[in-house]
């Protein structure tokens, strides 16, 4: 009996692997911390109005991919944001998707400037974002996967079924770091397989935040660092979910028996 009790104790204190998160990619380049959870950024631009902090993301990323009409957005909007009329400074490495939204002259321009045009129009089964994430995954060697973070603009708002499909991409590729960004907020998946430590960059994000059990309820979620923390709490649509919460600390921790979506508001960044 004594041995059994010992085993029980061991199970309850055994900790899960920790996954750290940071929005330091939103800081100006000069203010980047020396060490971040993941520092190899790939940017995916979907077809909605660019967020006002797009120049920061562009500068941060090692690889930029325009998903179909996202190329129109860079072509039309980037120079206004940067007061830089030279389009040649903002050439994506790849333009990918089913090519039904990109304007012909935009496609020609980027092609002539060296962008790889990856036409996936034969594949009508998946969204442009899914195609992009799938390609990124395929192209990333295993040993670099842990260091990779994909930043996506234009995934939220617009048609609700598109938004839901884009959120589903986070769940389907749950072993990748993918952050969906809008002017107002960012969202990312906190997989149930890990204990999460979210480092808050209060100069660029917060204080409003939330945690949601999209897709399946949670019977037990515990947090620290929030104004209204959860303690072994149940969360379910149709019952309680954590909205309009407030970050109360530099570090928020989350542990749950369900995959959760984390969101935090973004400050007015230019």
């Amino acid at each position: 009996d004594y041995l059994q009790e010992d085993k029980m104790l061991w199970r309850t204190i055994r900790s899960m692997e920790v996954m750290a998160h940071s929005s330091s990619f939103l800081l100006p380049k000069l203010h980047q911390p020396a060490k971040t959870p993941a520092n190899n950024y790939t940017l995916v631009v979907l077809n909605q109005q660019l967020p006002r902090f797009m120049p920061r993301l562009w500068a941060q990323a090692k690889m930029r991919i325009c998903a179909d009409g996202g190329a129109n957005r860079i072509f039309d909007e980037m120079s206004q944001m940067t007061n830089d009329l030279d389009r040649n400074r903002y050439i994506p490495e790849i333009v990918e998707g089913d090519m039904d939204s990109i304007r012909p002259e935009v496609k020609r321009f980027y092609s002539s400037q060296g962008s790889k045009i990856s036409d996936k129009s034969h594949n009508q089964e998946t969204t442009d974002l899914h195609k992009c994430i799938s390609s990124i995954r395929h192209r990333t060697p295993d040993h670099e996967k842990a260091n990779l973070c994909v930043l996506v603009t234009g995934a939220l708002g617009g048609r609700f079924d598109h938004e839901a499909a884009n959120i589903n991409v986070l769940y389907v590729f749950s072993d990748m770091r993918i952050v969906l960004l809008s002017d107002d907020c960012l969202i990312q998946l906190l997989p149930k397989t890990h204990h999460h430590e979210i480092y808050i960059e209060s100069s660029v994000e917060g204080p409003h935040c939330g945690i949601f059990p999209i897709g399946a309820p949670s019977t037990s979620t515990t947090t620290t660092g929030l104004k209204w923390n959860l303690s072994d709490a149940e969360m379910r649509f149709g019952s309680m979910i954590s909205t309009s919460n407030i970050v109360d600390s530099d570090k928020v921790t989350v542990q749950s028996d369900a995959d959760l979506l984390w969101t935090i508001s973004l400050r007015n960044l230019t």
Partner: protein
Amino acid sequence: RCASWTSEAPVAVGDADQIQFLKHSTRTRATINCNFSEHAPCPMEPHHPRRAPTAAMDPPSPAGARPAMSHSSAFLLPSSATPAASADAYAVVVLNQRLPRFAPLLWDRAQVRVCADGGANRVFDGMPELLPGHARDDVRSRYKPDVIKGDMDSVRPEVKEYYSNLGTKIADQSHDQDTTDLHKCVAFITDNSPGSDKSNLCILVLGALGGRFDHEMGNINVLHLFPNIKIVLLSDDCLIFLLPRTHTHSIHIERSVEGPHCGLIPVGTPSTSTTTTGLRWNLDNTHMSFGGLISTSNIVDEDQVMVTSDSDLIWTISLRH
């Protein structure tokens, strides 16, 4: 043809290092947005749903046991086109985002109009913009909310005073921080609507989608918290409403104002069985879940869409411009 059956999905078994990855890959093996069209059976897993075999093998449908619920977007039709026998009572709730272009139409249609806090700013600023041919004060007095409700931390003092002077009731609920503004408005409308039968009440909500994601999720949760009240969230691009699992659903499509893009989304819990008719890619006793298949970028093919499911679903359809 499914994107996930590409070479990056690991499938080798037996090697200890790969077993860990395989456990993870159970999440990635399912396709999303698979439209259930003619598919060669995928070589990988039996989990991938196939089309129903033959009628003889159809599982017994539980649909007959459930009451029917019907839905229509007739409220989006120009007022001249309203069917005369429509018994629906409409309420409009305006949340704090830019008004969609059809806001005046819905406002005119409604018997009750409630602004949630900063939604009053949006009506004050936005209605004259949507009706530029008319004098501002005329527009503002015509489009005057019955109630401004919520915690009052966003509504501009001059806007609050303007409407208060016109007779708008100001219902300050800053003491209640436990429920969202939309929740308060829905509770108010249901408490104040005549009769105990709410089946012909339809609450149209503007400004619930987009913006801060936690607000959007809170608004979607309100749909789940009030499954027996018809609540429609509208934006310029689309509308959404809940299809509670307790009912079989008949959705009448107003082709002149909505469609063709649509979807069915199991936001709260997975569905082990959903069946539809009237869509380009119908579901047939199909499993849907986040991490797996959800129905998006579907197309309405008929004037009537039927849906039966074992789980609450969010229906969404695009709006025409």
